[in-house]
């Protein structure tokens, strides 16, 4: 709904300071960046990751006693039983057999399928929703690659590792920066549309925490353009790439030697379980926004529930950096219909500043995401200069009209068509009125432990994309994730094909690891009805649920 009269009154204060702020930006004057030390202090005080309540340690599995505490919403998934009783599954009659099984039909999974296929593999992609219903399709801002003459992989590396607080795994970062231009070239060759100059050069933009302009994009639909392109290509190769929709994986199947050997899928429509036998398995299940950690809203798609990490963990594969969750500094806080919706960082890159109730700047607009989020939370919670909404949410202004003033009338509408329409629908013209924003749950940061080929400690089990941990350490920068899903999707696809071609003989299939996991739960004294992977969040009306007298729920699903 359009801004209320009270809010409109407040917007006048933003308008009052706007001309002067625009003038300062033109002269290159911005609110100062925080020093590393000061950033750390801000994070410790204001970032949700540093809160002690609502977190606990792992009591079972490979991350038991690793010295970190994790959000309850995460640990709950691991202190939970399988959806299936291993005793009643007959693994001797697989429903499908293939070379490579890919779990998750988003960006990483689709790229992996293309490279595995090019290397001679028959591929099955099993995915939870439709092919492409994924975080990838939602990405707006862009994809990083250091190819400009004023930039190089050296600076890209520095930005990534500094943005991740120097916790990233150096080898994973190295590969990410050095493979980047190759990926851009590959996407170009598939016919992805980029924002280019007439002579074919990239129109590059800056991003939070990046010292050079390095963002390649396609308007504000970059992720959608990547997903559409690679999905179309996978469909062109349908003789070798089979896609099973609405059939999420619920457990990885191993063979008696402990090699990956397939997965158990759950057909959400017919409610039957099916078995895929495969010589190699690549997990590309993406992130976890739908866990609503600490009650935050999220930008993620409906199926982002951390399933892949849970399944790999039951096989004994550790995870890393899951204690750090990424909150995007600018999620929509108004109108109610748009709450949680991502307001791309590119708005700030293009010149929009976060300002408080008095129209004052309080943060450098392009701090690394965690610091920017902490600054916004501080402004609302401590400084007390947030703007309340009619239903009791709170946010700060993102002064989008500055963009047109800096870059010319019509820029907002042209460069951010999707966002422009999404607010226009509710009577808010973001080229003339600021947006109300608050941090929102955005990215997983951590994930399954693997090397620079996506190989985990289980032979034949690979991971790629948001489910792979360590590339971004504790904090990812914008544009490096669309990059990593392609870099690691490609690598996992290629290496999986090599692994299969070495000649894999699968022994008897087993779910013994699930049995063992159940035993470990019991021995740790964890008595629970919880089951995982979650598959889908539950947004149904609790009052209706209470009246479903004969329904039986299994986790969040009936």
């Amino acid at each position: 709904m359009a801004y209320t009269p009270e809010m409109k009154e407040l917007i006048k204060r933003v308008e009052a300071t706007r001309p002067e702020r625009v003038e300062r930006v033109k002269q290159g004057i911005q609110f100062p960046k925080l020093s590393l030390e000061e950033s750390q202090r801000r994070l410790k005080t204001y970032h949700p990751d540093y809160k002690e309540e609502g977190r606990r340690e792992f009591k079972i599995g490979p991350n038991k006693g690793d010295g970190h505490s994790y959000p309850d919403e995460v640990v709950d998934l691991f202190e939970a039983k399988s959806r299936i009783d291993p005793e009643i599954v007959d693994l001797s009659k697989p429903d499908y057999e293939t070379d490579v099984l890919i779990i998750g039909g988003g960006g990483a999974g689709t790229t992996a399928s293309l490279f595995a296929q090019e290397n001679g593999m028959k591929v099955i992609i099993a995915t939870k929703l439709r092919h492409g219903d994924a975080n990838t399709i939602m990405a707006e801002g862009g994809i990083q690659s250091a190819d400009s003459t004023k930039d190089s992989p050296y600076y890209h590396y520095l930005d990534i590792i500094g943005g991740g607080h120097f916790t990233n795994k150096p080898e994973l970062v190295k590969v990410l920066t050095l493979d980047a231009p190759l990926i851009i070239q590959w996407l170009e060759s598939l016919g992805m549309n980029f924002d280019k100059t007439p002579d074919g050069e990239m129109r590059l933009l800056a991003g939070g925490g990046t010292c050079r302009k390095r963002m390649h994009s396609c308007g504000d639909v970059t992720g959608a353009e990547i997903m559409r392109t690679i999905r179309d290509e996978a469909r062109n190769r349908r003789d070798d790439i089979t896609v099973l929709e609405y059939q999420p994986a619920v457990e990885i199947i191993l063979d008696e030697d402990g090699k990956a050997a397939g997965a158990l899928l759950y057909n959400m429509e017919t409610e039957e379980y099916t078995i895929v036998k495969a010589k190699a398995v690549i997990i590309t299940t993406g992130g976890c926004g739908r866990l609503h950690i600490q009650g935050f809203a999220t930008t993620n798609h409906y199926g982002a529930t951390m399933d892949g990490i849970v399944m790999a963990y039951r096989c004994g594969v550790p995870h890393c950096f899951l204690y750090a969750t990424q909150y995007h500094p600018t999620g929509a806080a108004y109108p109610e219909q748009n709450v949680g919706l991502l307001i791309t960082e590119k708005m700030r890159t293009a010149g929009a500043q976060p300002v408080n109730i008095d129209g004052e700047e309080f943060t450098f607009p392009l701090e690394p995401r965690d610091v920017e989020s902490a600054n916004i939370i501080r402004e609302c919670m401590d400084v007390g200069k947030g703007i309340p909404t009619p239903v009791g949410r709170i946010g700060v202004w993102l002064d989008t009209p500055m963009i047109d003033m800096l870059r010319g009338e019509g820029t907002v509408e042209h460069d951010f068509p999707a966002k422009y329409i999404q607010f226009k629908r509710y009577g808010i013209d973001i080229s003339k009125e600021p947006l109300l924003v608050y941090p929102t749950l955005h990215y997983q940061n951590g994930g399954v432990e693997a090397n620079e080929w996506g190989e985990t400690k289980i032979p034949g089990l690979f991971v790629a994309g948001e489910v792979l941990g360590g590339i971004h350490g504790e904090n990812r920068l914008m544009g490096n994730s669309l990059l990593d899903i392609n870099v690691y999707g490609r690598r996992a696809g290629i290496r999986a094909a090599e692994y299969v071609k070495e000649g894999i003989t699968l022994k008897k299939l087993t779910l013994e690891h699930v049995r063992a996991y159940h035993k470990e739960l019991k021995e740790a004294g964890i008595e629970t009805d919880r089951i995982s992977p979650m598959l889908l969040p539950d947004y149904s009306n609790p009052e209706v649920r209470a009246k479903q007298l004969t329904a039986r729920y299994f986790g969040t699903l009936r």
Partner: protein
Amino acid sequence: MTTTVAKDAMRKGDKTVIAEGTRMIPIYVMGKRYFVPETLTIQKAMEYAGYQFIRSCGCRGGICGACATVYRLEGDYKLYSGLACQTVVQPNMYLVQIPFFPANKVAYDIEKLPYDVTAIQTTYPETFRCVQCNACTKVCPMDLQVMDYMAAAIRGDIEAVAEMSRSCIMCGLCTSRCPAETNQYNMAELCRRLYGRYGQKKSQQVAKRVEEIKAGKYDPMIEELQSLPLEELKKRYEEREWEPVMSEGWEPKETKYL
């Protein structure tokens, strides 16, 4: 005061908060009446009514095209459409979701197609059966000029199709309405790819960087960073030169790592 509001707000997650005194209105889901708060989107209203989605729900953010919905309003012959995750309910709306509509997707090899109208003729010949009825444009929830991009395709203006279909979410509603049985959005996808592959020039700078990387130019620089003690690495990070927002004509001072 502000602090309590904020802490509370943070716990709400994606649950829509229904403001005190919100009016309840009737909507008809596949003909069946439910009373829902008038502020909700169709998607959240259906969840409020007790539905749990498996289909018809993807991104929840207006970009995946899973939640295409068509509806009529009582006493109004017109057919309306929208994305369930983006459209607010109205009193007495009769709605149905179209989670899937069959469409012809042709397998082709992008390397073997020419960059002209014959590419469309050989893959999606039905495009040329378009009778310009405009039903597709009317139903498109993204307000695209679908009929116009079909006309551009018939003219062989691949670039125009690419530009005009840029925000297509491939929801399939246009295809569901077409009397000529065309497959507008798959054809448009083909054109976007042809445009990216042949219409847009390749970036020379990207190609050059790929070669430089292959030749190993940057390996020593990255290895240098990897071998630095943490304090020194932090120093380099803090001291790195920053390209300004308005950077026309700007050149970095440090050039040895370029």
